[in-house]
């Protein structure tokens, strides 16, 4: 099976572990994700707040590239929930809104492009694994079941809502990730807030609102004694992982819940090493939790020693006089 693949900006750097693990985990199933040429950002939730035409034109360039990619099967896979939403939403609105379609094609023409909306199916990476590869095929590849690891499956919002091209799971109580984690042998804990929002960009806009939203999720996972949270979106991972220390400071809590991508834990269950899965890039250390299932994670690279303090103030180095 070969799919066109839109990684999105986050997967280039911040969520590189998600990209690497997804590629590795797909191989044993004969699934190939072919990255589309020279894609651009999807605009996240920012461009649409500033300029409607530019926001849709930005996404339409990606859709046009995907559709004209040689050998594409009219399915475009996105691992990031925000990219998935923006791509599927633009495809849908360009199909149903004739005026918008006309304007966007006028804009695309300025770059020598055209987009015939319709027929492109935008799907999330999780959808591909659970529905195309299937639970049974995944079960067959499990060699190191995650027995004893308590996992809280976190979906976030945009993978299940609103479903511009239809949804593959329930809007409010999705189960696909729960089932996948069970297939891997994990103990899936009840996680009532599994489809609640991580706050998205609110960390940058209102600290109290963002801290409250992240705290709700961490508290819910901690209440059900989860060892780790498993996510399918780089924004959710960033908020829950990188801001966990801030939440602990803000609410004087002491959460220590590592946040991994579903592809990373799939790889571990399939016998791949923690290193191959990019584990170690998370800010909340996953080693204590993974030790429970006998997974060894290499030590993080030692922190470089601080430069010895100089007596005088730091000054730019000047070339020595001869």
């Amino acid at each position, binding site marked *: 099976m070969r799919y066109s693949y839109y990684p999105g900006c986050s997967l280039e750097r911040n969520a590189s572990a998600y990209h690497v693990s997804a590629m590795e985990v797909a191989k044993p199933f004969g699934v190939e994700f072919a990255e589309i040429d*020279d*894609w651009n950002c999807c605009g996240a939730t*920012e461009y649409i707040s*500033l300029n409607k035409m530019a926001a849709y034109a930005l996404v339409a*360039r990606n859709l046009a590239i995907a559709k004209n990619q040689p050998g594409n099967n009219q399915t475009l896979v996105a691992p990031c929930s925000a990219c998935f939403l923006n791509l599927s939403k633009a495809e849908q609105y360009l199909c149903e809104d004739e005026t918008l379609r006309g304007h966007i094609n006028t804009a695309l023409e300025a*770059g020598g492009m055209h987009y015939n909306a319709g027929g492109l199916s935008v799907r999330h990476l999780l959808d591909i694994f659970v529905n195309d590869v299937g639970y049974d095929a995944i079960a067959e590849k499990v060699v190191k079941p995650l027995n004893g690891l308590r996992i809280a499956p976190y979906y976030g919002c*945009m993978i299940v809502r609103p479903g511009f091209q239809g949804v593959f799971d329930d809007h409010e109580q999705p189960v696909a990730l729960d089932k996948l984690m069970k297939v891997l042998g994990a103990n899936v804990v009840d996680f009532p807030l599994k489809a609640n929002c991580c*706050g998205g960009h609110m960390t940058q*806009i209102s600290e109290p609102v963002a801290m409250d939203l992240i705290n709700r999720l961490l508290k819910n996972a901690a209440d059900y004694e989860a060892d780790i949270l498993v996510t399918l979106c780089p924004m959710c991972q960033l908020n829950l992982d*990188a801001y966990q220390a801030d939440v602990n400071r803000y609410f004087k809590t002491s959460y220590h819940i590592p946040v991994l991508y579903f592809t990373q834990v799939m790889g571990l269950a399939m016998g791949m090493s923690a290193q191959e899965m990019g584990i170690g890039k998370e800010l909340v250390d996953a080693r204590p939790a993974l030790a429970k299932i006998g997974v060894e994670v290499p030590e993080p690279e030692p922190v470089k020693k601080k430069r010895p303090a100089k007596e005088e103030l730091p000054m730019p180095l000047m070339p020595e006089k001869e």
Partner: protein
Amino acid sequence: MASATTQARAPTFFDQVVAATPGVSHLEMCIQCGTCGGSCPSGPDMEHSPRALFAMIKGEMREQVLRSNTPWYCVSCYYCMTRCPQEIHITDLMYTLKRMAIREGFSKESSASDAPGFSQSFIGFVENYGRSFELGLATRYHLTHHPLEVYKMAPMGLGMLRRGRMALTPKPIKGVNQLKAILNRAKQLEEEEYAL
């Protein structure tokens, strides 16, 4: 039977909001049930619930609507939109109100006045390079909006850098000039549409 002789009238605020929203917004269908506000994770921090805001739009309360912090506190989680019994595209309407508030200068007066700046910093990198650039975004946005609080970001930023999760320099896409041409044309079209 509807008369074919409806008189031309100046577009109302309600008309403008609907026209600026892509697809079919169903805004006129609101039955004031309040499911949206009750479903909203940041609802308690909003000055008006979406329901109240929609009533205000129908009441032509342009300024009060565009001054409200409500659209800026929308986290785009789409709970309201999937639960709305009238299938109103609430999240898309919030984006429309954000664009109008910026254009008409009201966003500066809302209690979430930093939000447009964050969007602009983010998009600045996308327009110039084709992709987002997290390190540049974090530094540019915080230095221009919260210069005295930059130190708060330092521990997390260093953690991200140390783990190779942030690039030090932006990497432009090959078709960056093509993208710029497309976006510039799109912006002209946005101006033309707004002038109508």
